[in-house]
């Protein structure tokens, strides 16, 4: 099929609009971080400045929120990934009939609105810590970690489950047969196999925690995270310092994506190399190069 120049132009236009729609707001915000006016503005560009970055780092509230967000993200990863792993393993161990019910139960936190999780986390922990005399646990950071982990664990489970379903049970049996104990099978065979999925789950858990607002706004109580600080600021009107923050976050994300892509390409190349080696060995074998019989 030939494509007329007209069609080609239409297609290019479509792509252009698509990307403008997708990236335009980010570009505008990014540019405003380097413009001098008090309010984020790109046009007219009144003068180039890096002051907003300085102002951002001098902003105590924001820096404190950022620090808390990073801590909470880290703690959520530490809780959600093991719970997700355990949840995924249970899924493969129970009878097929119990599986659909179990799936429904463990996935339900993903489907529950974040606001509801936030409110119910607060209600539950207030009751629980009050009744058990553990009031010191009724803390914004702890509640936020638990509240977020309650649904982020489900994300982690889904990611890990996808890989676990491709696991060859015979590998586990082979290790057992060679004398491994069950913990050894878990650490030597299953975990290395799941490593990529565990890594993805950890990254996703961190990002979901970092950007979460709906649940956090309730569970954070008197503490603050970056998202709750930002939301408070927006009410008073935004400043280019927030644009500067956006530039940093976008830059870090893009950098991460590039590093990931490089590593992935390297791994793919290694896999292709291996496959070629296997093919060569196969051909050599079928060509009848005698594999020396055991001496």
């Amino acid at each position, binding site marked *: 099929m030939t494509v007329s120049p007209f069609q080609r132009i239409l297609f290019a236009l479509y792509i252009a609009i698509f990307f403008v729609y997708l990236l335009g707001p980010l570009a505008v915000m990014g540019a405003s971080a380097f413009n001098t006016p008090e309010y984020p503005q790109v046009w007219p560009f009144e003068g180039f400045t890096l002051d907003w970055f300085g102002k951002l780092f001098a902003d105590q509230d924001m820096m404190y929120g950022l620090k808390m967000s990073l801590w909470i993200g880290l703690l959520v990863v530490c809780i959600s990934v093991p719970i997700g792993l355990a949840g995924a393993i249970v899924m493969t161990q129970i009878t097929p009939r119990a599986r659909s019910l179990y799936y429904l139960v463990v996935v339900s936190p993903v489907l529950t609105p974040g606001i509801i999780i936030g409110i119910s986390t607060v209600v539950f922990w207030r009751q629980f810590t009050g009744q058990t005399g553990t009031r010191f646990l009724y803390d914004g950071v702890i509640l936020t970690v638990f509240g977020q982990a309650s649904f982020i664990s489900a994300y982690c489970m889904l990611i890990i489950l996808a890989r676990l379903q491709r696991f*060859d049970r*015979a*590998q586990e*049996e*082979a*290790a*057992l*047969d*060679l*004398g*491994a*104990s069950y913990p*050894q099978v878990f650490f*030597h*065979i299953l975990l*290395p*196999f799941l490593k990529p999925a565990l890594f993805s789950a950890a990254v996703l858990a961190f990002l979901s925690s970092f950007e979460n607002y709906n649940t956090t706004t309730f569970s954070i109580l008197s503490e603050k995270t970056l998202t709750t600080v930002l939301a408070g600021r927006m009410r008073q009107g935004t400043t280019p310092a927030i644009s500067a923050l956006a530039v940093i976050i976008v830059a870090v994300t893009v950098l991460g994506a590039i590093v990931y892509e490089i590593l992935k390409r390297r791994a793919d190349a290694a*896999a292709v190399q*291996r*496959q070629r*080696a*296997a093919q060569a*060995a*196969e051909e*050599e*074998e*079928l060509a*009848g190069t005698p*594999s*020396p*019989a*055991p*001496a």
Partner: protein
Amino acid sequence: MAAAVELEGVNVTFGDFVAVRQANLTIEPGEFFSFLGPSGCGKTTLLRTISGFIEPTHGSVRIGGQDMKGIGPNRRPTALIFQNLALFPMMSVAENIGYGLRVRGVPRHERDEKVKNLLIQVALTEHGHKRVAELSGGQKQRVAIARALAVEPKVLLLDEPLSALDLKLRQHMRTELRAIQKKVGITFIYITHDQGEALTMSDRIAVMNAGVIEQVGDGRAVYAEPRTPFVAAFVGENNQIRGRITQVADGFATLETPLGLLKGRNPVGLGVGEEALLFVRPEALRLGHDGQASGSGFEAETLDVAYEGSVTHVTLRVRTGQKITATLGAGSALPAPGEMLCLGFAPQDGLLLKRPERA
């Protein structure tokens, strides 16, 4: 010396399904023993019972004289080679081979020494550092063997390990497996649905069908002296003709069939009036035999003649519409398709067995 493996009244059931029924068997040390049967006959279940992945519902498994009840697969003196080999993809070839030693806590230098020797033994000396994904099918096979041998099992169990290989390589690996077994001298228990593999490699074969061990014997016994119709039909090509016994004498009997009276050996002692099946191997049938003097004969129409050089396979149709195969030697005169022939066989080449009720 205690038997390598003893099965005593072993039954394995999954819910209502009986996978193995009443298995009694003694496998001697150093024996190459095969379980031969179609898929779903229970041979893999039996192998998994010996290796400890399945506990028998009834009966006991003894290895080296010791009852294995309650002893898990990781504490049995067996090693299993899986159908898909189940090599560990995230480990190198050497790490794969050394894995059994690693989990046993064998010190590194001792382990390395042993892995090196095993790599030499399976001719993979230069491949120790490679990933499993870089190897050919035959090389992977040898890694699996070395990995199993590393733990010095009393019994090596093999679950159709050659089925994934190219035909030519498979034949080569048969010889190689047999050679390895002779060299290490341990008991090999081999599972296969391929009678060629079972016949060429094994000291003894157990033929299984529908969860039951039908016959145990060396290759010649199961081929030439089958004791059940299943064994007669499954091991090698066989023609079968139904009928009723009319006369019994001196280990022979005469069968009344739609094709006339046919005479054959009667090793299981069938009596007059019993329903029976007569088995005749394609290579025992002779063309143009009048059937009067020394044996039995019947008429058939030639359908197809397949000339293969050393032998010729002839497909014929008898009066009842049933198809019969005859294999002729190199020097024979060949019939033409459509030709009516007289087929005959000597009474000692006919074998009479009891007809199973369900058939």
